[in-house]
């Protein structure tokens, strides 16, 4: 047994018996686990297993979708997210990276400066520093430093995804959620971003949704397997890959013998 740093860290996100439904149809139920500070928590599972719905619940994206609702209790930094009166400030603490890159129809610079501006940073020098730092961390600075004024939506797919990551970092989030971020990124860039994530976890907590089992193996300290709207198993990544699993379905999935 390996002793893991996460076990000593306080709980960042406590999820207790959460179920998500759309128009009364339950897509995910019985989710219960804790995510600790400074860990990368992997969520793996095939498509339509409720992974993205779970992420949407974490930053209360259900509010603007009348069809979507959730039950159970989610505590962020010890406070129930349902009792956050200013949902916008909750969201500003949680960075999200979507599966497909979303370059806002603004310049590269403004894409990254968006969240800091919302947070009230208005001095050009301050913004310049944030923009450069975030782009550099997302391994994009060198490629775009000479064209910060071009539209973000004109960058290539992989660049846009890194722009999205830079944007998520610009919020200075406490929790970063990545939803299959590597779909639109080439393998070399993926590796670079993975290195960035390993580095980032010293400062923040990361939830990584991925359908690449090997990516979870490389990055996640602990992980959960979502399958058909249920959490099959939660465990320490190394142990799970070493074969210490309770459920046969987990073993099959990790071995790639699923379906």
């Amino acid at each position, binding site marked *: 047994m390996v002793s893991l740093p996460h076990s000593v860290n306080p709980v960042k996100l406590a999820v207790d018996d959460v179920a998500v439904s759309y128009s009364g149809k339950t897509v995910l139920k019985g989710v219960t686990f804790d995510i600790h500070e400074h860990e990368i928590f992997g969520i793996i599972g095939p498509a339509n297993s409720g992974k993205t719905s779970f992420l949407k619940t974490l930053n209360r994206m259900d509010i603007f979708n009348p069809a979507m609702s959730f039950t159970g209790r989610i505590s962020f930094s010890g406070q129930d997210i349902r009792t956050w009166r200013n949902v916008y400030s909750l969201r*500003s603490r949680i960075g999200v990276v979507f599966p497909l890159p979303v370059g806002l129809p603004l310049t590269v610079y403004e894409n990254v400066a968006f969240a800091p501006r*919302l947070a009230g940073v208005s001095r050009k020098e301050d913004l310049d520093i944030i923009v450069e730092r975030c782009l550099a961390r997302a391994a994009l600075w060198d490629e775009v430093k000479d064209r910060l004024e071009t539209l973000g939506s004109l960058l290539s797919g992989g660049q846009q995804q890194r722009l999205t990551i830079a*944007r998520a970092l610009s919020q200075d989030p406490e929790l970063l959620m990545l939803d299959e971020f590597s779909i639109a990124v080439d393998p070399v860039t993926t590796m670079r971003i993975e290195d960035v994530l390993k580095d980032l976890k010293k400062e923040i907590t990361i939830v990584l949704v991925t359908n690449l089992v090997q990516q979870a193996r490389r990055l996640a300290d602990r992980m959960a397997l979502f399958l058909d709207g249920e959490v099959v198993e939660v465990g320490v990544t190394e142990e799970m890959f070493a074969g210490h699993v309770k459920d046969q379905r987990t073993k099959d999935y990790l071995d790639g013998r699923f379906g």
Partner: protein
Amino acid sequence: MGQVDTPPSARKADRRNLDWFIDKAVQVLVFIAGISAIIFIIGIFVFITKEGVGFIFKSNYALSEPVFGLLEKQKMPEDQLDALTDLAGKKFATAEDLLKAVEGVIGVEGAAKYKDILITKSLDQPFNLKTFFTSPKWAPTSEVKPTYGALALMVGTASVTGLAMLIAIPFSLGAAIYIGEFATGRTREFLKILVELLAAIPSVVWGFIGLSIMNPLIIKLFNVPIGLNVLNAGVILGLMAAPIMTTIAEDALKAVPDRYREAAEAMGATRWQVILKVVLPAAKSGLVAAILLGVGRGFGETMAVLMATGHSINLPTSIFDSVRAMTATIAAELGEAAVGSDHYQALFTLGIFLFLVTFLINLTADLVLRGIRKE
């Protein structure tokens, strides 16, 4: 290798079937429809131009009052002057024709004495570009001297359209933002249908509302003698243009992908911040199109402004003054103007001007949008 014979199976498969012929027929029909639309538009343009442009350069020769004044100064005998008054106002195509007519009245010798004046001073152009743009006097049926000053009409149209846009732009953008961004489910569907119904109200009904509801209301509210004025027509036109502007603006907002909203919301932007900083800039071109459509509607609207402006030629000094619009002038006067007369042609000149203004508005919009796109 020699020529390969097509196998019979392939030849059998290669048949022109019904679908093939339907496809050809539809292609031809669509082509004809498309081409004819373009030809009609060009035809209308040529017709209006032909009737109107000729008038701009039209010139006559006539014995007008200034000419009589000059003749009097040159000491033309009283009896000759009296005799010539019969010719006053008659128009001749050339100076020679006029001279001949004068010779017929006062004799060749008498006419020869005043030949210079008759030839050089009798030129009478009914239309003057400077008058058209600077004079507020639109008096095409004047017995003494018809004047074609369109300034008052232009100011009338512009003031009514301007006021209408001041009202319609905030209202329609607000309505579009509410319907497109905030309203959900049944409220949204209900509002959309309602707005589309409003857009279908005929303009004469709006004119009627202006005449019978707004008119007494304005008189009572603002204690002014007449309620048919810039304010009345501006409000009516604003209400008229708002539904269609709302529909177009709402379409533009809907065309902004939801992922932009989600991305901005995920960063903690409030809904208003999302709209202001992401949705509106992304929908910019569509919104400009909506506004320009409203301006076009304002310029082109005829019946409602005819009924609500008071239709009196006036340079307005306040929104409580009656005015007259260009379109309303054409509508009201074209029926009584004799075909081919100066009056008739002057109305077409007004039409050309309207056409040019709308064309310029569209062109500017196009250039602005291209500029935005290039950035």
